[in-house]
């Protein structure tokens, strides 16, 4: 059902094929978050992958920088309806971080400084689909945008790309994170408009 809205013309006459349904393109970079911005010093920063049974992999800021770095240019899609094309990031592929991680679990919970969590299937973090990024547009990632480092999972709505990320915990079953318990979808595929419960 789509009823016409009297007198509404809109501005963009052709739909961009790169724009998922219900989204509009913006040149700005809006900031969305649930609470105050955590201030994390690089000297104090660590990132952990907890694979269960006590098997934990950890990196310091210096260790992260020593890993192979990738430049990623990608479109991002926020559930609040804006999309931003061609954003430029730099960071480490999750494939690199998971290289030595042994686990039979298929699900993950991503954790952030400040307490934020979001769930992502392990398969959506691997095979060149996700990065731990620390630069945006050639500059160190600002705290408001998730610095020192955030996750980047551009094929899912941006709330899955956790800011201020501190670690990933592998799970045997899919459990909801922060927004997923507050009305938002478990998976969050922009192309299927998987926004809300």
């Amino acid at each position, binding site marked *: 059902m789509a009823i016409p809205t009297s007198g*509404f013309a*809109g501005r963009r006459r052709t739909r961009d094929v790169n724009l998922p349904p219900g989204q509009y393109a913006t040149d700005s970079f809006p900031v969305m978050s649930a609470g105050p911005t955590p201030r994390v010093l690089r000297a104090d920063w660590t990132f952990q992958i907890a694979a269960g049974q006590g098997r934990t992999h950890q990196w310091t800021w210096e260790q992260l920088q020593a890993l192979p770095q990738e430049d990623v240019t990608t479109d991002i899609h926020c559930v609040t*309806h804006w999309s931003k094309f061609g954003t430029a990031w730099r960071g480490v592929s999750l494939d690199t971080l998971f290289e030595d991680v042994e686990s039979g679990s298929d699900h993950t919970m991503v954790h952030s400084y400040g307490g934020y969590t979001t769930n992502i299937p392990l398969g959506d973090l691997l095979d060149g689909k996700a990065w731990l990024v620390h630069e945006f547009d050639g500059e160190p990632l600002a705290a408001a945008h998730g610095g020192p480092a955030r996750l980047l999972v551009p094929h899912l709505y941006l709330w899955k790309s956790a800011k201020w990320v501190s670690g990933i915990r592998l799970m045997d079953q899919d459990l909801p994170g922060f927004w997923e318990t*507050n*009305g938002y979808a478990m998976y969050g595929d922009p192309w299927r408009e998987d*926004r809300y419960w």
Partner: protein
Amino acid sequence: MRRTWQAAEVSAARPETATARTLRLRFPDAVSGVAGQHVDLRLTAEDGYQAVRSYSVAAWVPPHELELTVEELDDGEVSPYLVTELSVGDRLEVRGPVGGWFTWTPDLGGPLQLIAGGSGIVPLMAMLRSHAEARSVVPARLLYSVRDPGSVFYRGELTVLGQEDTQVTIDVAYTRAAPDGRPVGRLTRDAVTAACFPPEDHPAIYICGSTGFVESVASWLVEDGHDAGRIRTERYGG
């Protein structure tokens, strides 16, 4: 939560300021939600082109209506239409309500500290209205930062609430122009501290405004000793 689009009719519209308008939408079925939630609006042009935006609910008007307040953005595609063209009797489509975090219900208690920058007042006004309708005895304070006296939404209602509801305290801060005798200027940390419940009262804090506003105010409150876990934020923009 309704995941499907519902047709709604504009049953009333009134200007809030020179650039903002409150729209009352009427639904065929009953609608309900809690203060702080938003809805998605879908507008469809005659050629089928569609645009979707999210707007905070300003008031729930049971059983069939809700109100939104929309501020016109300079380069907006949808907001100028909603503020200046849409007429009573026109129809658009609505999905929601959405959101389970930036919400307040009277049973959550308080004290309730609300801090709004500009049109960030909208979801916080829904909370004050919920507080008033429930005759809540939870102490509530609103700090509302605006450019000038002409930018105040819900002016009459806020004045009445501040004067008649002994549980509610309202402070308006003016950044560009103020009524005679009132200070003008950038909102300062001291002004925020003075207008808020102290950390030892453990207020539930809701901040809504532009990114810069929310970043500044939330940082000050954390530095003042408020528990970051008690501070909920929502930013408009994009």
